[in-house]
């Protein structure tokens, strides 16, 4: 076993050789000088080996430090990227919400919160397609506020706006869950009654009239009890919603002329009307 000397030599062996070399009785021994040289050279080799080991150790430590440094930098970069991704996700969520708000604004009336004309037209077109596919029916109610101009002139436009908002809510209460009501124009509303034939539509129109009659809009300048007139029309085979609407609107005009605060049912389209409408669609007049 080797000892713990720096050179890793056996202590005893080194000491014994040193003793023998120092002993004067071997001073003239022919091997003495050679042994001295061997010991010398061995000492040099061992110290060189030690230096190499030390340098190698230093390299190893340096490499370890470098790895540590790189891994710290790597962790920092990862944290930075994670933060960037987190913030980016937030931006995306924000954009998504803004997009939804924009969509809502483009499909709903700002004042009443009801669907606007664009959304209602989409829904009506969908019903046109459905009625073709499934030979189902639907009805339209064209609703107009009676003497709305007088309300505006007497109480001001703010009061007129309040009346429209309250009426919008009343219409929603008067309709079935799957029906919808849109603000079609200034004081005109359009209700789409899905799957409703005339008798159902008349029933709904009557309920809306009654809901409106029980409505009192409380304003600082007084209480307004608005009234509405309604034109009712059911879709007939071959018609588009624009045709149905035209008939409902004509019935609305008649309801107005015959005293307001009532509904009137539109006459069904004549064969000629249906044919003319179909012809216009197939072969529209050039602009």
């Amino acid at each position, binding site marked *: 076993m080797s000892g713990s000397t720096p050179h890793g030599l056996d202590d005893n062996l080194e000491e014994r050789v040193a003793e023998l070399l120092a002993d004067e009785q071997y001073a003239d021994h022919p091997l003495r000088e050679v042994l001295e040289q061997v010991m010398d050279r061995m000492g040099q080799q061992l110290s060189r080996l030690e230096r190499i080991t030390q340098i190698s150790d230093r390299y190893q430590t340096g490499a370890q430090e470098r790895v540590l440094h790189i891994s710290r930098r790597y962790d920092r970069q990862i944290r*930075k*990227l994670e*933060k*960037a*991704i*987190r*913030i*980016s996700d*937030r*931006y995306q969520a*924000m*954009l998504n*919400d*803004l997009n939804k708000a924009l969509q809502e604004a483009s499909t709903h009336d700002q004042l009443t919160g009801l669907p606007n004309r664009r959304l209602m037209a989409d829904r009506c077109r969908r019903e046109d397609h459905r009625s073709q596919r499934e030979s189902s029916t639907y009805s339209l109610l064209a609703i107009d506020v009676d003497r709305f101009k007088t309300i505006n002139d007497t109480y001001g436009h703010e009061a007129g706006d309040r009346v429209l908002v309250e009426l919008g809510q009343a219409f929603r209460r008067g309709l079935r869950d799957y029906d919808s009501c849109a603000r079609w124009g200034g004081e005109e509303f359009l209700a789409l009654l899905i799957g409703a034939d005339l008798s159902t539509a008349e029933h709904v129109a009557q309920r809306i009239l009654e809901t409106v009659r029980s409505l009192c809009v409380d304003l600082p300048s007084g209480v307004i009890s608005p009234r509405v007139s309604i034109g009712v029309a059911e879709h007939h085979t071959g018609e588009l919603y624009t045709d149905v609407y035209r008939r409902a609107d004509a019935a609305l005009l008649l309801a107005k002329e015959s005293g307001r605060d009532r509904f009137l049912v539109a006459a069904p389209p004549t064969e000629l009307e249906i044919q003319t409408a179909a012809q216009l669609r197939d072969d529209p007049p050039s602009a």
Partner: protein
Amino acid sequence: MTQSSGQTSTQGSNLDLPATQATPAVQADWNAGFLLMAGESYPENTYEIFDDIISWVEAYLTGTDRPLHMELRLNYLNTSSIRAMIDIFDRLQNAADAGRELSVNWLYDSRNPRSAELGEEFKEDYDFDFVISAVGD
């Protein structure tokens, strides 16, 4: 003196980049120690614009010992722009650690309060003056 895109900022120069559809307006005033970024940032190549800004900030921080005030009105940033902003803030933090007087004012549209939360997210890791405030329309 106006710094054109793609050059390295020199000592004492200003930046004046107009906003484009995908990059914010940038104004850097060397003498006033003021940097403004306003608009949206989603360029295809983020370094096109941020190289100029980062090198201006570096030149200013190494070339002077005066305070730097940043005003940010950034409505939208894509991921690469967010990363570049973090790079800028990290440089500011290093300067703040060395005793530099710095402030960032994150201004957001009062109609879009969620933008304030984004400012808060950026602010999180820094201890220099980082104020988040609403501006009206």
